[in-house]
């Protein structure tokens, strides 16, 4: 079967062409699954989020106005779905006793040998609140104000939580470095 361009897929999905809808799902699911996994605790939970997100994407695709990245638009839907659908305890940040640790630079040699899956597992090992803020800020590129709106917290709270997340990640990386050394 011929590979269609992104524009063709979008227009086909807007016209509710099931063949193109299927193609869109087949094409973007692996990428969106990675996003979903970053915000969920398990693979089955990530699948559920992805399924709900795809239904939303195909339902609301007529509202996409071809401005901005289509991938970013889809990612945003996945993230919103993941954050809203989780029966998580809303931001009960865990105090993991990191106040004595100063935020330091993480040397590239510490994480250079890690592949994508290992890196993702490392991030996923963070407590849920820290993980979400780290993912939103560091990977998705959201600002603290946007994170505050999305998670219904203040931007300063977001900053402090990000700092804690970085410290925790640093600790984990150093532990990992010692283990491999």
């Amino acid at each position, binding site marked *: 079967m011929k590979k269609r361009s992104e524009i063709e897929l979008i227009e086909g999905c807007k016209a509710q062409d099931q063949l193109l*809808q299927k193609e869109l799902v*087949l094409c973007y699911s692996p990428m969106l699954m990675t996003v979903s996994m970053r915000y969920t605790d398990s693979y089955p939970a990530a699948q559920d989020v*992805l399924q709900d997100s795809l239904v939303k994407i*195909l339902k609301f695709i007529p509202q996409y106005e071809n401005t901005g990245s289509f991938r970013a638009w889809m990612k945003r839907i996945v993230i919103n779905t993941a954050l809203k659908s989780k029966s998580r305890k809303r931001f009960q940040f865990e105090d993991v006793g990191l106040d004595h640790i100063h935020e330091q630079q993480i040397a*590239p040699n510490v994480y250079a040998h890690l592949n994508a899956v290992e890196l993702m597992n490392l991030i996923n090992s963070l407590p849920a609140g820290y993980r979400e803020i780290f993912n939103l800020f*560091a*990977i998705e590129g959201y600002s603290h104000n946007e994170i505050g709106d999305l998670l219904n917290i203040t931007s300063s709270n977001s900053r402090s939580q990000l700092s804690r997340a970085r410290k925790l990640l640093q600790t984990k990386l150093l532990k990992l470095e010692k283990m491999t050394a």
Partner: protein
Amino acid sequence: MTNSKFEKDVRGILDNHETEVNTDLLWSNVQAELYPNRKKKFAWIWFATAGLIVTVLMSTYLYYLDNTGELQPSIEYVNKTDVSNVEKINRSISANSSAIQTKKNVVENKIDDLKIRKKTKTQLKNSTIKNKIDKKSSIAIETKKVQHVGLSNTSLQSKYVSIQKKDEKLNQNLPTKSNIGSDGIINNSATINSDDSPQNNKAIKIDTTSTSQAFEIATNPAEVNHADETPIIDDSKAEQKIRTIEEPDAGETPPPILSRKLKRAFQVGLGLRAGISNSLTTLETRSDEFSELRILRSQSESNLETVDFAIEFLLKHKSGVYISTGVDYLRAARKLEFNNEVVTVDTVMGTTVVYVHPITMDSTFVEGKVERVTNTFARKEIYNKLHLLNIPISIGASVDYEQWTFGIQGGVLLNLLLKNKGKIMDSESTFYNLKNDDANWFRNNLGVSFQGAALVGYNFTDNFQLTFGPSFRSPVIISEDINPIKQSQVGLGFQVNARYWLD
């Protein structure tokens, strides 16, 4: 080195990372949420339509059956119907039908029997009445005699009381209006004699009052002689009455009953049909980009036979025009042929290592298991079967010539896809499973198509006929709009019908 560098690196690594996911399962779940119960909804519409049609036809038929009982008219109308039947049969005899001739004889015999039975019963009744009247007359005469011989008042009174009792008993036994019609023919005969024959009525009336008159006669002997008169039963008048019943006046028609008229005009029939045709399939591309796929499918698929079986309910007008409906099952078959390559990997014993001595150049062979890859090419066939349920609604007309019948019929078919099994190619290396129909390429509700047939047949009896002839079915589009290939099937074949017309 800052944390922003670390985060940038992490973003770069994770941004392009893809996680493996079962996309087919995911799509089927997404599709189920986007288009819920679509297939079932349409299926129920067609089933409801079919149920409605069948119910209407069966109700009509049952209505006729129920009214057959109600149509049993009184004795007068039975006779009248019989007479009209004779005329009707007489007209039909001219068509030299042996069956009708037999029917005529039966009906005529029936009429003769009825006449004889009526006459006999009338005479019997008359003679019974005559006997009763004789008895009564003798009692009256006895009373008179008692008066004349001058018996004492006491003995006369006791005699009179016993006579009066006899008289009452006789009166009870006489036919009255209240028991008319409760016993069939005998009672009807009684009706004729007591109600319709003035002569008889007169005779009975005179007699039933005779006892009281007799008592009065004691004081007026001149009138006693009248009681001695014998009543006259006029048989010729009774016969005349029978004739009147059999040949009623023009104004004496039975009440018009709609169902009776319909029964005369229409005939209900049941039929079985079997057909065989070639499922001529047409594959068209919806756009040029799918032309390769169309060629691939055209080359890999071929037509096989289509068979269909149907149960029909028919309603035929006496003019020969009929409508029919029922349920029709159709199975269309196609064959997918392709070259199949099977790669088999196994191990065999062989040389795994060869050592060569650098000086002596001696070779040492080490035996062991060696991997062997076998490629097998085979022509493979898959049979695709399309199962349809159709609701045919047809109109037809037929003419009879002696025992032969010739007719045409045409109508619509409401199509419903029950099951689609098999595989088609959707690329050179992959197949699309028709049963799962993941992309909803094929329709469940196929809409409406048209059918027609020309039939020649033979009437084995008045009720049973066998017809056969060529048949045609217009294209049935079985693919959905999202299917890159528009697929339709035409039927051109032969059909046989067995029909039984109910009386």
